[in-house]
């Protein structure tokens, strides 16, 4: 049975400090919520290096290759004489190749955000906690998983958190 605690802070400095503190104590799978990106939080939470840039690069190159294939292939598919140009008119292909590179890269980037952030999840257990909506207004939250096999049900976790000056601590995910 997994349960966790939602900890509310008044400022981003407190959040950052709490995240560092809890991680130092060995808590893993921390997640923070804030109305704006807090500098240093990712490092504090121990997030791995994002693979989105790689995905975007692959997406962009796919766009480039696809448009080149379409342009050259379409020309071969129906070889018509046009304006005395050679069939293989590479310079004329470049603008579209450039545009599709950007287009595919941008689409990949957006989709990557949706996929990597687990968006399109319109309901989350946290949404049921009154006051959590302030995470997108002016409050900072930290969720600490307290999966406690000893049956202490988060007591130690609460004790550890007390040092971080939370506004309040709410248990989440109770059955």
């Amino acid at each position, binding site marked *: 049975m997994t349960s966790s605690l939602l900890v509310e802070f008044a400022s981003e400095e407190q959040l950052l400090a709490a995240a560092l503190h809890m991680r130092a104590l060995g808590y893993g799978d921390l997640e923070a919520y804030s109305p704006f*990106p807090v500098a240093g939080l990712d490092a504090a939470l121990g997030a791995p290096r994002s693979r*989105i*840039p790689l995905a975007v690069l692959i997406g962009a190159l796919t766009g480039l290759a696809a448009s080149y294939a379409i342009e050259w292939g379409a020309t071969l598919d129906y070889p018509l004489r046009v304006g005395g140009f050679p069939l293989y008119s590479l310079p004329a292909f470049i603008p579209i190749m*450039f545009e599709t590179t*950007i287009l595919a890269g941008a689409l990949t980037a957006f989709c990557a955000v949706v996929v990597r*952030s687990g968006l*399109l999840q319109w309901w989350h257990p946290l949404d049921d906690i009154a006051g959590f909506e302030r995470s997108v207004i002016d409050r900072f939250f930290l969720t600490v998983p307290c999966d406690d096999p000893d049956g202490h049900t988060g007591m130690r976790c609460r004790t550890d958190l007390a040092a971080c000056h939370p506004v309040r601590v709410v248990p989440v995910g109770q059955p």
Partner: protein
Amino acid sequence: MSMAGQHAADPLLIGTSDDAALTQRVLRPLWSPHPALGWLMIPAALGSLVFITALCYTFVTGIGVWGNNIPVGWAFAITNFVWWIGIGHAGTFISAILYLLQQEWRTSINRIAEAMTLFAVVNAGLFPIAHLGRPWFFYWLAPYPATMELWPQFRSSLTWDVAAISTYGTVSFLFWYLGLLPDLATARDTAPTRLRRRLYGLCALGWRGAASHWRSYRIAYLLLAGLATPLVVSVHSIVSLDFAVAKQPGWHSTIFPPYFVAGAIFSGFAMVLTLVIPLRALLRLQDVITMRHIDNMAKVLLATGSIVAYSYLLEPFTAWYSGDPYERYIQLVGRPAGPFAWVFWLTIVCNVLVPQVLWLRSLRRNLVALLIISLLVQLGMWSERFVIVVTSLQRGALPSSWSSYSPTLIDACLLFGSMSLFLFLFLVFVRFVPFIALSELKLLRRKEPVETQVSP
């Protein structure tokens, strides 16, 4: 651009020290809209109706209802198209290039500019379709596996155009929407009614400000900015190739790409000013959009205006230096003295002379003057495109085919109707969408010194 060095001059944010208050401040127009905007909506909606009617009439009857002819095969529609797409450049320029250059002052205006871009691109995208002889076959310009196995002709700059405009529209939308997600979530969680919570929640895609959200968001936003930056430069360059790859004297010019891009940013910033100055006054946003923003935008106007002026100088020089008699005629006789010479001179006045007054600091901070200047710049930029399109075509290589052009009522309806549609969409945007990047503002509040007094 060295605006970053002027932090001391003016603050970028005034008076609010509290995130909750700032949130309420910025989202207030969503929950208690300003009545003046509602009244403005009526003429804008009527104008849009005129636009749609004129468009339908054109579709049903044929583009003979316009004034176009042979040799002036393109006229108002393409002028409008180039003008709108140019206006659409400021949004992405502000969002992407200023973001990469870490220009903090972009924050309060970037959402407005991006929305403006989108609506300008919507307008711009309509005109090339409407100007087709058989608009119902517009999709033939896109590659798709047709039964006849016939594909578009990729040597034509019009197919490049299709790729450029659709890419630009898509990327601008993604960029805008990605940046909007956190603010839509804020709107969701501050909305006064259940329905609005549902609707904004739906649009927010389940954003709840998690660190993992922000991590992907920031990387993707940076990457999008990086991708959009060359896009901004490329789109108007490709649009300019619609002219530059042609043999038509007056079009066949290598300076067109940079010249068009400068003009685009020029007209785009003028449009941002045109929108922001009244909006700022109406919604009392002086604390969020400060004189610093206004001043910086005026400087961009001056800088790009000067590049445009330089291009104007270069164009006839290149023509003269090339020795090409057709090009020389267009540049040295056809435009300054031929039919529509007055439009040419109007362009010179609006785009070359008028922006130069912005060297004066007092005028850069005079909102009424700035509004007038930005309106004149837009008039000038429309005229410039008209001059390029029409005065070139009406004076081709064979004097026997020289003719002129006169627009019809439908042409006028489409031009002013498209402005109405733009205004309508913008008003809808201001009414329903967080039009200032709230989450970025909260971040900015922590970086910038905040003054408590609203400057005049």
